[in-house]
């Protein structure tokens, strides 16, 4: 039980910003795969099905990655 608690605690220390970035990567891969499969853009429900994420997490992750993108653009530009 001590092990599990320590695992949960360590896991709990992960910053939300990092999870959102990871999810963002997974979502963009799913988006490509589904575009290939259906020949059209996937809906949020389809992306949620495919990734196992809820639609709210998808919305937050794509926003988080938008921020990262725009920061990178500012640095390069």
């Amino acid at each position, binding site marked *: 039980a001590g092990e599990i608690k320590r695992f949960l*605690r360590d*896991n*709990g*220390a*992960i*910053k*939300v*910003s990092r*999870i959102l970035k990871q999810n963002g990567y997974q979502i963009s891969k799913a988006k490509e795969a589904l575009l290939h499969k259906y020949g059209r853009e996937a809906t949020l429900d389809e992306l949620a099905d495919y990734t196992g994420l*809820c639609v*709210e997490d998808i*919305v*937050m992750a794509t*926003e988080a990655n938008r921020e990262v993108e725009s920061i990178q653009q500012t640095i390069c530009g």
Partner: protein
Amino acid sequence: MNSANEMNVEFDSVAKNESFARVIVASFITSTNPTLEEVSDIKTAVSEAVTNAIIHGYEKGAGKIWIRTVVEDRSVYIEVRDKGIGIADVKQAMEPLFTTKPEEERSGMGFSFMEAFMDRLEVESAAGEGTVVKMWKEIGAPAPHYE
């Protein structure tokens, strides 16, 4: 960046807005750079308060729910308000396992969860007057010790 930032949101008392409530609070507090655990604590507390407004406050009928959130540095303040039936005996309602809807598999642990996951909880209510739940949490504080 040190001045307070405030938002107020009003939405319909329907079950599908519970997840909306969780997301808006979560995204409004991102500036405090919380951990997954801290966000999950806050989402749980907001969920419980919003569910109470929907199920008890408006008894699943039509109504509006208001959430006010104020962030200052890493301090988070959240208020969940309804204009529903209110609570006659707040002290009793806040006792662990107390529920007026046992037939709906309510656990009676909603207020206990809010208390456990937040640093501080205050409930203002009276019969017929609606309910205001006020919650405070400091982000980045040493994790509390749950038994």
